[in-house]
């Protein structure tokens, strides 16, 4: 049994010198227009807003604020492209364009990674090793489907829907754009996409890639802005399908406004995933999985393993090891190659996280944070765990979307299962055990779209992703992801 008396010391002594990625070769324009009909154009009302680096609070650029008039232009351009070249194009030709986007993205991967970290605050290790390669992989994967749709839906015909309006969040800016755009194009649709207002830059870079790839004008349109621009897309009568990733609250609003219309929709919303550690698990690797589950991307992950359930007999050991591991997490400059946890995306999000830290303590939770120092400027939150919380605690029930983990213990299998499913969400889950039968049994019973076994937060374009209950409607990724962008008919 591990005790906390014999403590390990990680501070002081040998440390790592700063190893920042150079930004010398990065070209960020002082102002970005809207990408409509193949051109970068000024917004009709001439309004722009700042986009900042959350690690330094420095202004990076100014981004156009689209109004309903701009959105209308974008939807009309998309409609024209759909009726015109894109709609008439042979599927095999379509796939060539999508492949081209993937290749250009790979060639410019370094630039994309750096901009993603500058604009969003995520560590360069993650944007370099996960976000950007996975974005390219989605385009590669769906490019392959473009001329094989009849095999995806045997015995039926698959027709494109028309214009897809897509609204994406700030946690994985380029990756979410790729998740949305790649299957839409592969199925023959055209796109109007709105990135989140705090993270527009890689979307504008993606617009450059799309222009460089020679896609016919209007096939992909990117309009930047805040909620109003998003609402204009959702409400536009020329949009045939709405794809949204973001909070459950906004998802509800979208669903309301789409009720009674002919528009199809997929919603990928919040989560509060249970990560369940059984006593027979490989404990050291499970601890690593807890870390990847909740501290990946500062916890700004809808499928984050934010509720930890540890079997009672190993709880002390797991928590002691987790605390040790938290001491070795490096929080700071997102561009430093050694950074594990970057900046919180915005001051608004930081306030929200901090309010939950207060709520958790007020509810009687025992809060522990790593002892690392954080920079003075910018938005930061130390990795945090709560013990002594229960199912009735708000930090257990509500999505915090930050590096904050709520830990509970369980004694029996059924208890773990009941607690895991006792949440309005159902996006993901994790199980840690050395016993295969337990994995199969548990994964059948956990009501979540994705359940990982002995790992966490693994993504692949071939694997469908989506939620139960308040975590959303529909699936993205894989074969299932095509379904959201086609009308099926009898052959």
């Amino acid at each position, binding site marked *: 049994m591990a005790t906390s008396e014999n403590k390990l010391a990680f501070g002081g002594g040998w440390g790592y010198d700063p190893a920042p990625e150079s930004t010398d070769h990065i070209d960020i324009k002082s102002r970005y227009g809207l990408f409509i009909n193949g051109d970068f154009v000024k917004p009709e009302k001439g309004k722009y807003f700042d986009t900042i680096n959350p690690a330094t609070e420095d202004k990076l650029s100014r981004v156009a604020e689209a109004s309903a008039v701009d959105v209308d232009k974008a939807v009309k351009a998309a409609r024209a492209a759909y009726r015109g070249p894109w709609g008439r194009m042979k599927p095999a030709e379509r796939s060539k364009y999508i492949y081209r986007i993937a290749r250009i993205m790979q060639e410019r991967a370094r630039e994309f990674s750096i901009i993603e970290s500058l604009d969003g605050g995520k560590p360069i290790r993650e944007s370099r090793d996960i976000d950007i390669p996975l974005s390219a992989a989605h385009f590669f994967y769906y490019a392959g489907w473009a001329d094989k749709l009849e095999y995806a839906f045997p015995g039926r015909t698959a027709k494109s829907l028309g214009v897809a309006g897509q609204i994406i969040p700030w946690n994985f800016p380029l990756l979410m754009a790729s998740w949305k755009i790649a299957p839409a194009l592969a199925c023959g649709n055209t796109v109007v996409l709105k990135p989140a207002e705090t993270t527009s830059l890689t979307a504008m870079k993606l617009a450059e890639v799309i222009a460089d790839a020679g896609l016919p004008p209007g096939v992909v349109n990117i309009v930047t802005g805040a909620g109003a621009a998003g609402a204009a897309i959702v409400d536009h009568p020329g949009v045939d399908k709405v794809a949204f990733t973001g909070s459950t609250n906004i998802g509800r609003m979208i669903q309301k406004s789409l009720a009674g219309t002919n528009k199809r929709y997929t919603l990928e919303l919040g989560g509060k995933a249970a990560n369940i550690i059984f006593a027979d698990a490989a404990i050291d690797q499970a601890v690593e999985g807890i870390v990847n589950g909740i501290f990946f991307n500062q916890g700004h992950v809808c499928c984050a393993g934010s509720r930890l359930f540890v079997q009672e007999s190993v709880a002390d050991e797991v928590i002691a090891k987790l605390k040790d591991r938290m001491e070795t997490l490096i929080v700071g400059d997102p561009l430093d190659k050694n950074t594990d946890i970057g900046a919180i995306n915005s001051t608004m999000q930081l306030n929200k996280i901090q309010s939950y830290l207060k709520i958790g303590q007020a509810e009687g939770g025992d809060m522990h944070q790593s002892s690392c120092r954080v920079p003075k400027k910018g938005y930061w939150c130390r990795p945090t765990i709560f013990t002594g919380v229960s199912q009735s605690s708000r930090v257990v029930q509500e999505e915090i979307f930050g590096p904050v983990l709520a830990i509970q213990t369980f004694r029996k299998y059924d208890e773990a299962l009941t607690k895991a499913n006792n949440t309005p969400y159902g996006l993901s889950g994790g199980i840690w055990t050395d016993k295969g039968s337990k994995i199969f049994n548990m994964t059948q019973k956990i009501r979540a779209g994705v359940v990982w076994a*002995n*790992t966490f937060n693994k993504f692949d374009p071939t694997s469908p992703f989506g939620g139960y209950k308040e975590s959303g409607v529909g699936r993205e990724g894989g074969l299932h992801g095509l379904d959201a962008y086609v009308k099926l008919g009898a052959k």
Partner: protein
Amino acid sequence: MTVTAAKKSRRLPDLSRALVVDEVGVNERVARFQSRSIKKSSKVEALKLILSMIDLTTLEGQDTPGKVQQLCQKAIHLHNSMPGLPHVAAICVYPTMVGVAKEALVGHDINIASVATAFPSGMSALKVKLDDTRMAVKAGATEIDMVISRGNFLGGDYRYVFDEIVAVKEACGDAHLKVILETGELGTLDRVRKASMLAMSAGADFIKTSTGKIQPAATMQVTLTMLQAIRDHYRDTGRMVGMKPAGGISTSKLAIHYLVMLHETLGNAWMTPMWFRFGASSLANDVLMQLLKQSTGLYQSPDDFSKD
């Protein structure tokens, strides 16, 4: 603590308890260590630390007194044209060469490690192994690198392996005992973990991956598993045990990855030659080359460094 008291306090650990290690997870963790970027002064500091942690090794049937003497000179004078370098932690030889080394290292604070117990296979009677150990200690070895009986371990006779280590530890007297698990013959990380617990409970001062005679020798995966076992042993008993990966670590880059792993697994207390060693023969020259490159900006020819 007297030897008998220490012996009494040693208990065979409960190996029926599942100590599972997930290899996929270990690989992922190792990849994270390898992606750490060590630059500038932290690199120089690491390189010097690595030099001071080396057990400079020659373990060949063709070893001669002359070769061992040369190795000892190298241990003392790593690269005289570069001032401020540490000396290595120890030299590591066969029992018959311990006397030669002792003479060559007189007046220097460098340990003499000797392999013993029918190294490298361990395929001999306990009595022979104990005599082998006593002979090396008597000749002046301050550290004994023993091998475990892998056949008995794999056959499930943990008691035999445990008792053997206890006996060798007793034969060591004041000499430090490093227990070689020969992980290349154990096959799985679960067994590496189990053998580590066994060796530490039996009184090992250090646990060591390999003899260098079997492939694979040290790997980061195996070393991480052993470091985690050391951490758990420390948490349970308060006793620190050292770690020695040996065989196959011949570049500075790889050695720095090991240091990163040590740093993030056991923390600062283990970042000294007292608790961590590299069993290596060609690593020293690569580290010297990198150190010179850090100060001059240029790589020297491999022939600028003595080969012994």
